[in-house]
């Protein structure tokens, strides 16, 4: 469906107009305000007819401003680099809106999150508690503006067990498990060694980040908070936040700063993929591969420290630019490191992928067909391994990516091997991107001096993190964001795990879970909770 960009914009506008919508165009973003009765129809048209990509939805408490709640659904038209924000206002006394889950299945979690955190009810769908811990008081919706950010109810520890024991074997994975480095809980129902059903409970590690940014912090401080959403791909988050605010405030950031951002983003992608490969080898018991993969990763960690001042959580992003320049000396050192890295990585990966157990256990396991990948709007390597050709670096060019050329590896097998291969190819592409950027980097300042951020503007940005697209949505406020919503890629990828784990050998379950490169703490951001205390299910002596 190749069409002229202006033509397609006109089509979106007439679609919105036909449904009593109101459209404003802001550069690459179409703000469509629509009555809630037409919500399902427009979502259906965009998702199923125009094949727009559903990214996330955002509930906002706008009562202090205009007396309404609002829901904003973020779609992106990847072929035409367009963001479509479908916004609907919801009455504040009896907040309820039709759910679009029937037409866009991927909306499941973010609607439930809005229900938990803002108290918006969704009709025409099954509703359940997703984010808030069991025992959270009713009628306290943490993201409503009147709730203080340090509100802490007294909670009692409860069992993690999702359903009472059945005759089937139940293998619990989590909340604390040696193979998963973050707290989450999978209940695998097995017959012998075959997984037949999966249930998931996550959101154990809400850290109240969004609330914190909206209450206690300033614009520039949030950069550092955003960086701490994820321990592996934090720079993507801080860049995404900075770009979203810059977009909202229409700031013209110096080119050199954008180049530096892109370089560091790619450095982070390389280290993240190397880390993932190491973990994958560890999960299939190939520890030597794991150790050597991390040995060569150490070079890139040193490089990151040299370029930014820190191995991780680089802390060089600010709204308006970056804090650290790359001089000629560092440029040479970077090129040298990358050359070494490429050589060693090529050597090592060839050996590792030929280890019979690695090959056997990666191929054909954790299958995700393309239809399901589209249905769940999965992100990043998971999508690209299932034949969905999307990459925000190419589709929604940001920072300095428009000055580079690179291939987006796409595989159609949809198994763990394809996901591994996507990442392996991306490492080589990233190395080439950094070389191109270092070659072309323009001179000039790296920081924008003196700027204002007007209130009440909306900015939304997708940044391709190693795990997939991060989405940051910002409504500007007075000295700090009025609303800041973060969606990490794992948020969309976890629901797809259910499909990937079913009918697979139990032994490959951790590998499949690892294959989406899950980042549970990124996924669960939002809430302040007390320590949950003891968890009964951990003492499994009473057994199945």
């Amino acid at each position: 469906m190749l069409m002229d960009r202006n033509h397609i914009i006109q089509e979106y506008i007439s679609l919105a107009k036909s449904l009593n919508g109101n459209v404003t165009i802001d550069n690459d973003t179409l703000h469509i305000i629509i009555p809630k009765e037409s919500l399902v129809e427009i979502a259906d048209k965009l998702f199923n007819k125009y094949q727009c990509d559903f990214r996330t939805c955002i509930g906002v408490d706008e009562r202090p401003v205009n007396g309404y709640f609002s829901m904003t659904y973020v779609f992106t038209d990847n072929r035409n680099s367009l963001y479509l924000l479908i916004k609907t206002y919801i009455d504040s006394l009896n907040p309820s809106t039709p759910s679009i889950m029937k037409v866009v299945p991927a909306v499941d979690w973010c609607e439930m999150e809005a229900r938990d955190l803002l108290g918006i009810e969704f009709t025409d769908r099954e509703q359940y508690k997703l984010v808030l811990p069991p025992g959270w008081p009713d009628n306290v919706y943490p993201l409503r503006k009147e709730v203080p950010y340090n509100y802490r109810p007294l909670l009692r520890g409860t069992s993690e067990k999702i359903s009472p024991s059945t005759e089937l074997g139940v293998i619990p994975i989590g909340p604390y498990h040696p193979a998963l480095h973050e707290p989450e809980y999978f209940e695998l129902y097995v017959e012998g060694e075959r997984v037949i059903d999966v249930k998931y409970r996550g959101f154990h590690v809400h850290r109240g980040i969004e609330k914190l940014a909206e209450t206690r912090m300033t614009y520039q401080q949030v950069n550092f908070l955003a960086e701490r959403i994820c321990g592996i791909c934090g720079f993507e988050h801080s860049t995404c936040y900075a770009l979203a605010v810059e977009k909202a405030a229409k700031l013209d950031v110096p080119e050199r700063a954008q180049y530096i951002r892109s370089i560091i983003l790619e450095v982070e992608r390389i280290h993240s993929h190397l880390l993932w490969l190491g973990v994958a080898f560890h999960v299939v018991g190939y520890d030597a591969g794991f150790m050597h993969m991390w040995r060569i990763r150490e070079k890139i960690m040193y490089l990151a420290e040299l370029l930014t001042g820190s191995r991780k959580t680089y802390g060089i992003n600010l709204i308006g630019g970056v804090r650290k320049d790359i001089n000629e000396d560092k440029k040479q050192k970077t090129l040298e490191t990358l050359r070494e890295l490429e050589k060693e990585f090529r050597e090592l990966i060839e050996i590792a992928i030929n280890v019979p157990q690695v090959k056997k256990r990666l191929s054909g396991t954790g299958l995700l067909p393309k239809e399901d990948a589209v249905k769940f709007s999965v992100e990043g390597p998971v999508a690209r391994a299932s034949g969905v050709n999307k990459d925000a670096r190419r589709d929604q060019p940001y920072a300095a990516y428009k000055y580079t050329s690179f291939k987006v590896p796409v595989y159609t097998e949809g198994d763990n091997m394809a996901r591994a291969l996507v990442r392996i190819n991306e490492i080589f592409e990233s190395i080439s991107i950094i070389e191109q950027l270092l070659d072309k980097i323009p001179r000039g300042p790296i920081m924008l001096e003196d700027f204002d951020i007007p209130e009440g503007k909306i900015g939304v940005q997708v940044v391709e993190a190693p795990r997939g697209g991060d989405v940051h949505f910002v409504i500007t406020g007075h000295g700090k964001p009025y609303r800041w919503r973060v969606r990490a890629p794992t948020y969309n990828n976890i629901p797809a795990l259910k499909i990937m784990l079913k009918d697979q050998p139990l032994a490959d379950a951790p590998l499949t879970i690892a294959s989406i490169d899950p980042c549970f703490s990124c996924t669960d951001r939002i809430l302040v909770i007390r320590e949950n205390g003891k968890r009964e299910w951990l003492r499994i002596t009473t057994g199945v």
Partner: protein
Amino acid sequence: MNFIRKAVKPAELLIIAGKTKRVTVKYPFEKPILSPEFRGSIEINHEKCIGCGACVNACPPNALEFVESSDKRTLRYNIGRCIFCWRCIDVCPVNAITGTRNFELATNDPLDLYSYIVHSKTKCTSCSKTGETVKMRKYIMQRSPVTENYINNCPDCRREKFINALSVRKVGFVAK
């Protein structure tokens, strides 16, 4: 032939291992490799610090905080909260904060995590309310021409004094 080459491919790892030798170091007996750009803990110069609070405002995790008492304003640095972003160094107007490459900060006593700089506060000559630190006032006086008449007052008294002076000049008396 190809089949055999593939079958023995995993053994090539032994060659790589032989080539690279060991890469880990016997920390803490051997020093780890740090890049020259590494950001470690910060040091605040007692002499230079004027207690203006720029760092307190900029610090994302509130590692730098003011602890107020009636006549003292204490700048408290809590390494336990510090994220080593060095934003404080960027914003300090008098370059009192320097970055170090020190990262070995673990301690047995939680009190070791704190360091303090105590500033005495100025007192308003008319209402005896306390205001900014003494050093801060000195810094302002060096920077901008402020008359002795106003500088020793708190902002409230200063405003009142100014309005009074203005009304005396315009209408000849102080309006109640």
